């Protein structure tokens, strides 16, 4: 570890990509890393998508500006393993086996559950069907186009599971959004921090760590999770195999998977995201319990879409989404 720190300090710089400072506490995480190790972090394209991260790795291959480390959705990680260098962090054994690639090409980092965030003026939502009532005219939005954005695909899947669908067949979710569209409650605006604050997208299907009142900045913002539906999703870390700063990249991973009180795992937790080592940390007593207690509670058996379930859903959406809500 000391040799790694020395080598990373010698490199002096780390290139990261697509890490919004307000997303899962990344602003604080980057600052803490810079302060601890005296390494400058260059953060590019903070609002980029996972696919754009991978594109940057390919296009800037060999340049000193190429991203050193990636934080990508699972589908993108699985499709691009040949771009990654295997690495096992020192807390490797605390990452559940299902949430990492055995040789260390990628390893899940943090995640959360799908939830429906909404403004306090709507009262309290207790069931999905309430969203079809006239009160929600033009109000209900997703976080992007489900044929492009992972968060939006999972939004449709949340409705699907709540309507009695199964993870391998998303059609009931699409049917729900078709109904929403027909009663005029579907809102096709791109939901961003700005539109939520402006009130243009007052009801948003999104990951629970992006649906925190502190994140969206709307006083009284509430969260509803359909009962018994725990649809989870995790992002994954990977190191660019041609990283311009290989030691800093590995030190960054060590920092992110550190269970120290100001290590990456607890910092993600303070940003409302669930760190991948949460279970091990809870038994070891290294978790920040007050941050853990503020997480929205989830009932039911957690569902994580498998690779094939996710691609089946995407294929179905490619043909049916535009028809259902266009």
């Amino acid at each position, binding site marked *: 570890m000391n040799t790694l720190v020395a080598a990373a300090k010698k490199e002096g710089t780390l290139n990261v990509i697509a890490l919004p400072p307000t997303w899962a506490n990344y602003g604080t995480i980057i600052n803490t890393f810079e302060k601890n190790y005296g390494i400058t972090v260059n953060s590019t394209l903070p609002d980029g*998508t996972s696919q754009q991260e991978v594109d940057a790795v390919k296009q800037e291959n060999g340049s000193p500006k190429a991203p050193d480390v990636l934080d990508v959705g699972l589908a993108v990680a699985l499709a691009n393993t040949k771009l990654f260098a295997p690495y096992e962090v020192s807390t490797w054994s605390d990452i559940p086996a299902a949430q990492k690639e055995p040789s260390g090409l990628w390893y899940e980092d943090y995640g959360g559950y799908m939830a429906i965030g909404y403004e306090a003026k709507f009262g309290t939502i207790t069931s999905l069907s309430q969203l079809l009532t006239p009160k929600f005219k033009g109000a209900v939005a997703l976080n992007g186009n489900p044929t492009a954005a992972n968060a*939006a695909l999972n939004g449709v899947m949340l409705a699907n599971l709540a309507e009695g669908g199964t993870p391998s067949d998303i059609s009931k979710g699409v049917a729900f959004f078709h109904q929403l569209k027909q009663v005029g409650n579907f809102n*096709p*605006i791109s939901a961003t921090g700005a*539109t939520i604050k402006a009130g*243009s*997208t007052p009801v948003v299907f999104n990951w629970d760590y992006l649906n925190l009142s502190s994140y969206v900045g709307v006083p009284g913002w509430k969260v509803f999770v359909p009962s018994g539906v725990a649809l989870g999703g995790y992002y994954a870390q990977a190191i660019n195999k041609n990283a311009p700063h290989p030691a800093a990249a590995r030190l960054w991973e060590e920092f992110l998977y550190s269970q120290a009180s100001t290590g990456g795992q607890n910092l993600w937790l303070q940003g409302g995201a669930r760190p991948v080592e949460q279970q091990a940390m809870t038994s070891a007593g290294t978790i920040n319990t007050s941050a853990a207690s503020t997480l929205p509670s989830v009932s039911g058996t957690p569902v994580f879409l498998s690779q094939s379930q996710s691609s089946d*859903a995407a294929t179905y959406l490619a043909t049916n989404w*535009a028809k259902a809500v266009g």
Partner: protein
Amino acid sequence: MTVAATTKTGVRPSWAGRRPPAPAWVGTVPFLAYVAIFLLWPTGIVVINALKNPNGAWAFANLSELGNPLIRGYFIGSFKLCLLSAVAGAVLGAILAYAVASGDPDGLIRRLYLSVSGVLAQFGGVTLAFAFLVTIGPVGLLFHASWYFDFPWGIGLIYTYFQIPLMVLVFMPAIDGLKVQWREASENLGSSAWQYWRYVGGPLLAPAFLGGALLLFANALSAFATIQAWENQIAYIVPQQISTAMSSEVGLSSVNVASLLALGLVIMVAIVMTIYTLLQRRAARWLR
């Protein structure tokens, strides 16, 4: 060098003592290089990618995908939106241009309209979408239009915001080209206002009007940021679907599909611009 030249031919060349004259085509090199690098090269990449499969092998069968109802739907969406915004923009822009042109040619109003049009014709993208969002969107300051998300009406209305000023700019020269003597001549021959417009003014302006409408059509075809900020959860038009095909993180991304869609757009623009050029040539006869 001068000596050598004279002894060789025995006649002093006219450029003796100066640099030899460059061939005429040299002057076009910067332009041609620019066009080659920024237009032909990228277009070539698009065409090649459109005709390959993800493994890099040739796949001319890709072209049949343009007949796929799903893909055709995006082209129909683009066509609808462009047609609506071009017709609305052309009609309203032409009326506005005529109203402004019939005023004092050096007056304040005219200068004001032209400079404002110059600015607004370039006003688009996220700023424009957001401006409409806060005026007629779900929490609109002015009113809450219930049809604002009905494609293509809502977004078509937004597009007219930059289409009308563009039409004013391109149509004004045509109206200025209408000589007042023609009107006087037709009135001297006893024609009514209706007859003047039916037999003289209308036919003269028609090519410029149609040309302007086509330009607006092509202009709307490539607009992307505005609609993407307005309604991005569904892809209605080709540029939106290109974006999905380029950046999908749920496993639907394909450079080849994106290129194929782009190729379709290139063909659409080529058709529109060819007709535009023909019309411009016809219109130019009267503007000398």
